[in-house]
């Protein structure tokens, strides 16, 4: 029956098929005619890609049962010894082959025509800041629209009415679900809005198809109103069921993954602050309490502390299919939270921009941030604003090929700003000079100095920012030395701008300033641990260390507040953190309360060392004296 059905459907829809071929043919000719005119090609390409697949799939689906209604052939089909749902399915699959054939030709046209070939890769259609890919437009969307229209085609014999209705229904469902999800996402209820929306977008046509099947199986086709009623009832039930199922699933799994992704951790003397997808938290060292200080879902953990202020970037979605970044500031206890700068305001010079990263001055009076992809400007990327929201000023750093930026610190009483700028490396490029650069920006004149380049990871760490406020200070970084092909640990004195290599003998893989800013601990490529003292002007300790877990060197090292070093150890399944004294001898090893293959960063503040369980997204802290573990998050 199925084979005969395919033949029958192809015959019936041959008109539509030929029409589609004609349209594609016309576009082909148009592309060939305008090969030189890029603007025309863009226009033609957009029209073809955006209009053809949806319209065709809607028309094809909507025509599904139209001939049956016109001929009265539905009574014929229903009086055959075949289950009605099979008839529906056979028709659906038969028409699907027509759709596939046309889409195949469509893809062929876009892939083969030289003018159009690059289109799929570069095609982007901004929607919620995600680029709706060619794949979705060419394959998923037609299938969804076709199924929707076909499911609705049992309601009427007028193809155009059904096509229009299908488009309306689809738009309505998509928009409703998107808006609902976005507003819930804003409230921090769902952690992954996009997967939710995509799953529901696929479940909706399935629900409509099921409703259509049920209608065919149950309803009296000779009564159009009854038919429509049965269909609507079933459709509503299935759609609500889909929503309910997905919501339950999402809530259920979110419950277990409620604590997700710890992004950033900033340590202060009395507390430390960390950013997660659920919001911002503060752990008070004295009270040993974790509290949530802001509910905004943290996106890429951008936050910065300075003085008594905490600035962070949050995202929220308006109803206009766009997401906007907002720079917000609050006191470090979470009070007085307010917006500093938002990118959704059309009057704002930052409208439409993307904010990342953020830095607060040591006294908490100024906030610097990088805003990119601002439509109103392609030049100014660095911005500084006062923490009361006044005095927004933009700076052109003169850099056009930056991949991303990292802030170091304000310096010299907020007159200068230190930051690192990484460069885009072209794939396959062996250009080793594309390392990062250390910049100093004069915030009064706007002048930019490149203090060092060819900086490799781990990127730069400065001494505690408070000490840089005055103007003195040092920045340590790893620089690639072409002559020796080594990654050399270098220290730059900000006062004299003199550079000093700490350990030129070997490549350094990681380094860490101590809490008072006068010692540097580092790991070499040959697994040696060294300590450099500025007071004594040289290396005071150098030891070969074995048995420690230094698979991710830059995460492996930390100083305690009382001058000891912490390293990780992994013996079999057991991970532990080890304390080393001033002679780099192991004092004690404290076993981690969880086992994980991955080694996370170690932080230390006050009496505590903090470790992250990256698999379960939890934060644990241990009192180094009592060796008591406490789950912080």
């Amino acid at each position, binding site marked *: 029956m199925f084979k005969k059905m395919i033949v029958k459907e192809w015959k*019936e829809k041959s008109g539509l098929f030929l029409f589609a071929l004609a349209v594609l043919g016309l576009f082909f000719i148009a592309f060939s005619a305008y090969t030189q005119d890029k603007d025309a090609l863009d226009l033609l390409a957009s029209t073809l890609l955006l209009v053809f697949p949806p319209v065709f799939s809607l028309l094809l689906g909507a025509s599904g049962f139209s001939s049956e209604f016109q*001929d*009265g052939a539905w*009574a014929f089909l*229903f*009086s055959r010894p075949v289950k009605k749902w099979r008839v529906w399915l056979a028709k659906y699959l038969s028409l699907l082959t027509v759709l596939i054939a046309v889409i195949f030709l469509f893809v062929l046209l876009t892939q083969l025509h030289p003018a159009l070939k690059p289109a799929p890769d570069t095609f982007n259609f901004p929607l919620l800041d995600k680029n709706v890919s060619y794949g979705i437009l060419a394959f998923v969307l037609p299938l969804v629209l076709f199924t929707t229209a076909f499911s609705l085609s049992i309601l009427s014999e007028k193809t155009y009415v059904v096509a229009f209705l299908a488009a309306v229904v689809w738009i309505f469902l998509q928009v409703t679900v998107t808006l609902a999800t976005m507003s819930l996402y804003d409230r921090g209820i769902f952690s992954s809005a996009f997967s939710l929306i995509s799953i529901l977008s696929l479940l909706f046509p399935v629900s409509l198809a099921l409703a259509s099947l049920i209608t065919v199986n*149950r309803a009296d086709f000779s009564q159009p109103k009854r038919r429509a009623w049965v269909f609507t009832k079933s459709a509503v039930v299935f759609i609500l069921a889909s929503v309910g199922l997905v919501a339950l699933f999402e809530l259920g799994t979110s419950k277990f993954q409620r604590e997700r992704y710890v992004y950033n951790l900033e340590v202060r003397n009395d507390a430390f602050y960390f950013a997660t997808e659920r919001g911002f938290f503060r752990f008070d060292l004295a009270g040993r309490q974790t509290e949530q200080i802001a509910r905004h879902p943290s996106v890429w953990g951008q936050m910065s502390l300075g003085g008594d202020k905490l600035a962070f970037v949050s995202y929220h979605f308006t109803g206009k299919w766009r997401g906007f970044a907002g720079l917000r500031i609050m006191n470090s206890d979470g009070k007085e939270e307010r917006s500093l700068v938002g990118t959704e305001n059309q009057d704002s010079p930052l409208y439409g921009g993307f904010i990342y990263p953020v830095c607060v001055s040591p006294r908490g009076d100024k906030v610097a941030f990088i805003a990119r992809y601002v439509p109103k400007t392609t030049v100014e990327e660095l911005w500084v604003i006062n923490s009361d929201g006044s005095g927004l000023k933009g700076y052109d750093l003169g850099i056009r090929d930056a991949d991303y930026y990292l802030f170091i610190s304000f310096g010299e009483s907020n007159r200068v700003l230190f930051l690192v700028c990484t460069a885009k490396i072209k794939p396959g490029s062996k250009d080793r000079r594309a390392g990062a650069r250390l910049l100093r920006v004069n915030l009064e004149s706007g002048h930019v100095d490149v203090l060092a380049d060819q900086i490799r990871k781990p990127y730069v760490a400065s001494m505690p920012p408070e000490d840089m406020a005055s103007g003195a200070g040092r920045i340590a970084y790893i620089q690639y030395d072409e002559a020796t092909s080594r990654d050399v640990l270098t220290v730059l004195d900000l006062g004299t701008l003199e550079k000093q290599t700490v350990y030129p003998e070997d490549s350094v893989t990681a380094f860490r300033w101590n809490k008072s800013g006068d010692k540097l601990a580092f790991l070499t490529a040959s697994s040696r641990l060294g300590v450099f003292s500025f007071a004594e002007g040289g290396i005071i300790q150098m030891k070969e260390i074995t048995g420690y877990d230094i698979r991710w060197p830059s995460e492996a090292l930390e100083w305690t507040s009382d001058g000891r070093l912490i390293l990780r150890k992994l013996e079999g399944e057991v991970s532990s953190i080890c304390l080393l004294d001033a002679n780099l001898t192991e004092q004690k090893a404290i076993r981690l309360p969880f086992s994980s293959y991955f080694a996370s960063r170690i932080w230390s503040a006050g009496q505590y060392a903090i470790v992250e369980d990256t698999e379960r997204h939890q934060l644990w802290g241990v009192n180094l004296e009592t060796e008591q573990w406490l789950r912080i998050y």
Partner: protein
Amino acid sequence: MSELLKTIGLSKSFGRHLVFSDLNIKLTAGKVYGLLGLNGEGKTTLIRILLGVIPADSGEIHYKDSALSFRSAAYKEEVGYIPEDPFFFGGMRVGELLDFNAAFYRRWDGRRAEDLLKRFSLHRKARIKTLSRGMKLRLEMAVALAARPALLVLDDPTSGLDVPTRHDFLQDIIRELADSGTTVLFSTHLVHELERIVDHLFILHRGRLILDEEHEAVKRSTRRVRLAFQGDPPQTLGMDGVLVETRDGPRMEIVVYPWSDDKKKKIEEFSPTRLDVDPLTLEEIFRSFVAG
């Protein structure tokens, strides 16, 4: 005689309009059943329900002892259907329609199909659109009969056709009956044609089955009685089964079902001056039944 099809308490309404309720019919194998009724009184609806094209509101249908549901499809292998308006298949050709239909039936007899095409002078390559109404009917016959149905259901297929075509059509049915012993359910309002071949009558009127009887028995027991009295006829004759009653001065004419000698005696008690009892044609019988 085996029971082929049976309905129990079948009811159907379209919105607030009740088509029929609590319908019980039984079809025995090998007989010809006539489904009579005025236009628009539910014959087509009933047939559609029996063929599972539309669902009944309540009630059961049994085919050969198995209960059917709206979703049942297997029994339709044995049921042929020729509707009132022939199915229109757009640009299909005769051969294509036959092949398309063949795919549905397990016991499709291809050779029989060819024979029927020949007998009906239908060409495989002919476009269905170009066939006359009569030829379309023959095509539908071929389509239905090639599947060797045990039950053939016809919904007033000959309305609008001329007499010779109808005559030929009936002959085809008869040949099929004689060859295969097919059970036939024939719905029509051309009653006099049915008269020659029907075994059992159903009359569907105002939502109820008002007659469910063997053709012969109905013919035997329905009578037109012409009466005349001295003076005015009596107000009532005091008997049941008077289908139609007309008065004209001293004269009175009634159609009675069932007629009996007792009833005759009852009338004689009124001393009529005239008492003529005559049989009726099926057409007249039908009209009498639906007059009320």
